[in-house]
């Protein structure tokens, strides 16, 4: 026998009340606690998306964290430009983008100097506050946090070419026809634009004349024609270890660290002693800056995550997260430095890190990048056509 005593009219009335209540409750709920209270989205280079880095933060906050890893800066920046500022909370890219592009274009927002500058105080000497790449042009706003960094010029097998020879010859290694077939080119096309400029004998980080572009084009064809292969960093390291090639561009501690971690300490990142870069420097270095995206509905955890990865323990984890291994700015703090074993310091070439950074200019925006990239892509294509 049925025990349902409600009339149809009662049922409809109650349903309407419940629906109304749910709607109001939902709205007030949204007002009281942001919809993003339990969510954090990070657009980053690999490492920050690893379980070692994210899981402890997930456990402590209960938040759902999505981290997408990409391997070039322009793609990440353009995803924000294409309207994804309402998706991402943090963006982790190389140094010039925050200050020169993302902040002026309103893609990121400043973070609290009082809260974050004390962390810069504990960093290695080159990163003390106010750290240029973390600040806006006026030097008033803090735009992000610096963490991983490293020199990034080329990598050699020191059993084939000694470190001293490679440092001394520098970019001319690619101007010596005798080296054709002995080197590879890592498929890192933005950095290859810089390196081909260096091989051609001029600074990449300024406007170039038509004569320079013509020379750049000829150099790009020559470099790709002489390359044994073009591939990702795993292929480059494998080819170096196996003896297929003796050296490759572009590369640095970031790219050769997996081979060194595997015991191949003869695979070494090299920074030329001299070169065509500002001040006669021979190498280029990168520093990652992680910024808060100008998301209209920013996650409550965005700045907390920035602080979380600055702790000595987490900094060490970030340095040795899966994929590649890199020095971190927090190594200036003995509480962090002491966590690194001798083997780990060998992997990231700590012995020469300071002098290599000193011989490098910092990664910057190439004003005519689009033109140079198109010339290089065409050169690669034409070389492939014979």
């Amino acid at each position, binding site marked *: 026998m049925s025990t349902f005593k409600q009339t149809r009219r009662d049922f409809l009335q109650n349903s309407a009340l419940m629906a109304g209540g749910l709607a109001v409750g939902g709205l007030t709920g949204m007002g009281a606690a942001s919809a993003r209270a339990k969510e954090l989205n990070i657009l980053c280079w690999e490492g920050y998306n690893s379980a070692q880095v994210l899981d402890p933060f997930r456990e402590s906050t209960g938040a759902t964290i999505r981290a997408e890893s990409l391997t070039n800066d322009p*793609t990440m920046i353009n995803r924000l430009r294409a309207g994804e500022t309402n998706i991402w909370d943090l963006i982790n890219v190389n140094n010039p983008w925050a200050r020169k592009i993302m902040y002026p274009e309103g893609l990121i927002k400043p973070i609290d100097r009082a809260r974050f500058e004390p962390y810069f105080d504990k960093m290695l000497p080159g990163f003390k506050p106010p750290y240029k790449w973390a600040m806006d042009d006026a030097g008033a706003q803090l735009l992000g946090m610096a963490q991983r960094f490293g020199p990034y010029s080329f990598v050699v097998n020191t059993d084939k070419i000694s470190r001293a020879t490679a440092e001394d010859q520098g970019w001319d290694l690619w101007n010596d026809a005798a080296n054709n077939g002995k080197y590879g080119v890592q498929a890192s096309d933005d950095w290859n634009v810089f390196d081909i400029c260096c091989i051609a004998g001029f600074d990449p980080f300024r406007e170039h004349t038509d004569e320079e572009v013509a020379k750049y084009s000829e150099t790009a064809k020559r470099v790709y024609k002489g390359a044994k292969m073009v591939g990702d960093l795993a292929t480059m390291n494998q080819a170096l270890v*196996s003896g297929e090639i003796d050296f490759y561009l572009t590369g640095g501690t970031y790219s050769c660290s997996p081979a060194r971690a595997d015991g191949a300490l003869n695979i070494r990142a090299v920074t030329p002693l001299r070169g065509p870069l500002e001040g006669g420097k021979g190498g280029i270095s990168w520093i990652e800056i992680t910024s808060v995206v100008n998301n209209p509905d920013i996650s409550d955890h965005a700045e907390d995550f920035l602080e979380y990865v600055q702790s000595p323990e987490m900094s060490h984890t970030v340095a040795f997260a899966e994929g590649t291994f890199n020095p971190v700015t927090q190594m200036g703090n003995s509480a962090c430095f002491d966590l690194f074993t001798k083997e780990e310091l060998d992997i990231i070439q700590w012995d020469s890190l300071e002098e290599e950074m000193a011989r490098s200019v910092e990664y910057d925006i190439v004003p005519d990048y689009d033109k140079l990239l198109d010339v290089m*892509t065409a050169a690669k294509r034409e070389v492939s056509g014979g």
Partner: protein
Amino acid sequence: MSVLAQIFRPGMRHALPILVFLLGGFAAPLLAVIAFSFVPSRTFSLWSDWSFDNYVEIFNSSSYITFVWSLGLAAATVAILAVICYPVAFGLTRVFGRYATLITLLFTLPLFVSENVRLYGWILIFIKNGVLLGTLKSLFGWEPESIVFTHGLTLMGMVYVYLPFMLFPTTLGVSMVPQQTRDAAFDLGASRWQVFREIDLPLAMPGIVIGFLLTFVLAVGAIAEAKVLGGQQIIPITHDIEIAFTYAQNWPLGAALSVLLMLVVGTLVLIVLRRFDLDAILGRR
């Protein structure tokens, strides 16, 4: 019947969800790519002045090289696979008997492993001091030149990766040839060559043509083989498209290249389909 009435016929009404799904999931992205190909270079908004500039840029560039590589490699892959797969398909259908299932399984198994992993596996085998050359060196002191990062290995990789896509339709085609027809031909004095040319091949053609089309379309879109095994000695059109969408951030150019590729491949497929009416040879009309 009015248009509205036609739309609201029960059949159409029930097909509506899948129709909406197809329009949203299949047609809309395709239309977006086509639309993007007309917007100014290196911009990200569809609502700007449309023009054919991206197409003009492609026709004035050396992009034809990458088109030729992709189409040439795909054609070579199809040709090589046709020669390899027909005898194997014939064997699976008429010779291997109870072992046919096991052999089919062996051909299918690699599909369960990611293509990139399989290609890197080949690198480990062929690279200097790798599985093959390292073994030859240690056992016989013989050190031949390595063949990694060459055009030949790129083609080998494509043949290897796309083999199942040619083999299984071909096997289907060969199995459609009635044994009685072959027996009758032999009884009437036909030679093996005549049976092959006049019975086996024409009757298996639906499967072979499907294999051709499937393999060709997939192979034109190949990128990993040239990247991993070929060390980018060959730049296929797909690589050009990838560069446009990533490092160059020139979505309109990448979209125009994609549209041209679709047009070229679509035209080639239509030509083949006009020559071989699949419906007719499959006996549907």
